[in-house]
Structure formats: structure tokens, C-alpha cells
């Protein structure tokens, strides 16, 4: 969730858009958003101009603390995937005739 919000840079997201982009149900997305907002990782606001005949929607984006945390997460994930890639590259090939012994 943090990474998904982080990818939207400074832009605001709607709850339903997050459900669709993450392919998660609203029953999963909203509890996470509530927790993140309560922990100060996500900022919320209401739309200033709602579509005609519809109520203003709630908007979400990472707070500075959330953005910092997401950047750390991304770095950790990149480091882990880089390490895994180098492990695969460095792994010795099985010597012919020894496989299955």
C-alpha cells in the first residue's frame, strides 16, 4: 500500500482506485488506510470539487513520514532482489555427471 501510494508521487488517490490498482478488496484496503492514517503515514483530505450530484470523495497520499518509510522499504526490497539476482548469477552450475547423486 505504501509503495503504491509512493508511486503516485505527490498526487492524491481515491480508495476505489487503490483497490483496483492493487487488485485488493475494499475490506482489505480501508483497514490498512485507517491504520496508516492513524500512524501518521498517510494524509487524508476531502475533494474540494466533487462531481456533479455526488458527494466529495476522500483522498489519500503519503505523509512525509510515510514517504520516508516507503523509500526505506523500496531500498530494502531492491537490495534484497539485487542480492537474490547476484546469488543466482554466482551459483555454481552442477557438474556434469553429479546431478541426482
Amino acid at each position, binding site marked *: 500500500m505504501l509503495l503504491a501510494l509512493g508511486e503516485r508521487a505527490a498526487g492524491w488517490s481515491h480508495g*476505489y482506485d487503490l*483497490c483496483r490498482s492493487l487488485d485488493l478488496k475494499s475490506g*482489505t484496503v480501508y*483497514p490498512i488506510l*485507517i491504520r496508516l492514517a492513524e500512524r501518521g503515514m498517510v494524509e*487524508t483530505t476531502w475533494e474540494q470539487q466533487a462531481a456533479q*450530484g*455526488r458527494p466529495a*470523495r*476522500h483522498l489519500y497520499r503519503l505523509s512525509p513520514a510515510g514517504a520516508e518509510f516507503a523509500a526505506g522499504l523500496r531500498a530494502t526490497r531492491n537490495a534484497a532482489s539485487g542480492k537474490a539476482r547476484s546469488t543466482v548469477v554466482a551459483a555454481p552450475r552442477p557438474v556434469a555427471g553429479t546431478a541426482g547423486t
Partner: protein
Amino acid sequence: MSHRRRDGADRLLATATAGLPASRSEWGEAMLAELASIDDPIARKRFARGAARAAFVRGYGIRVGFGMLAAVLVAAIALAASRLQLADGGPGVLPVTVPVPALVLLLAALVSAGRTRSFRIGMQTGLVALVAGFAALFAVLAVEGMVWMDLHGVFLLDGDPPRGVADPADIVFDVFTTGMWVGYVISWLPAVVIGAALGTWVGDRRNLADIRRNAARRRDG
């Protein structure tokens, strides 16, 4: 589509979000507003179902969950009180089954109100616990009363013998008398009110401390 009629998805989500505590009512409004932006009926149903489940768990779940947990504890306390005295056949479980469950109800209301910072939800949790606790307590006492009468020929509540011969109905009605109900309500209800009030106070204090801590963190950062 400016005047779409309320459909099942609207009604389901409105009902589920109505139970959210005041501190999270904005989230209920957010879910309803989001639902209003979705036009596809199938997507609306899917969104409403998921959001309603989340809102229900956060709104009603805490009341029912803590209430039922308290009822189970009340039943366990009554059973333990009965079994610990069963060998002696006295002095009866009343000195335990009145004050100790009151403490359990107080805790249920306190924790619930503290977590939600809502006196109303603390009271509702306490009342669910009170009603479920009554039912659980009387079920245990009715069964245990039979065992006591069978083994020692005395009533479970006070350890006194009956006047004359007691049949099973007498034993059960001894537990269900009007005096018993009134006595329990008088003892347990104030515990619920005190627990809800105390929980709201504690929750507000914790929230204030969190706000100050976050503000200090932002200032330092």
C-alpha cells in the same frame, strides 16, 4: 446520474458504517462517498460488501466480541466457584457470582470504550456483556444447582437446604427469582457505566498523548 436511487449496496454500507465509533465516523463517510462514485452495479456490490465487512468488524465487532468474551468469563467464574465449593456443599456461590462478574463487565466496557474513545460503545459493549453474561450465568447456575442439590441437598446460591422436598423446577427457579435479577442488575449496571466512563477518559488521555508525541516528532524531524 445525479439522482440515483439508493440501492442494496448503499443500504448495506450505511447500516455497517452506522456502528463506527465517532473517532472513525469520517471513514464511514469516506466509504459511502466512494461507493457513490461507482456506477457499475457489480462493482458497487463488491465494494459495498468488502467495506461493510471492515466497518462492521470495527464498529459492531468490538461490542459483540468483548461482550461475548465477557459472558464466557462470567460462565467460567460461576463454574469455578461452584466446583471449588462442591466438596463442602457451601457456603454458596452468591458472594462470588455477584461481584466478580461485575469486575469482568467493568473491564469489558473499559477496554471497549478505551479503544474506541467512545462512551456509547463502551456502554453498548457492557450491556451486550451484561445480557449475555446473565444468560451464561443462569445456564451454569441452573445445571450446577441440580448437582449441588443432588450431592448435598442444598441450594447452590447460599448453601441453605430447601423447606420440604425440592424438585428440579424449584432449584432452577431459585436461580431465576425476581430478587436475583434485580440484585444482579443493581450490582452489574453501575460497573458497566463506570467502566465505559473510565475507558473513555483513558482513551482520550492516550489519544492526547499520541497527538503530542506526533507533534513533537514532526517538530524534531
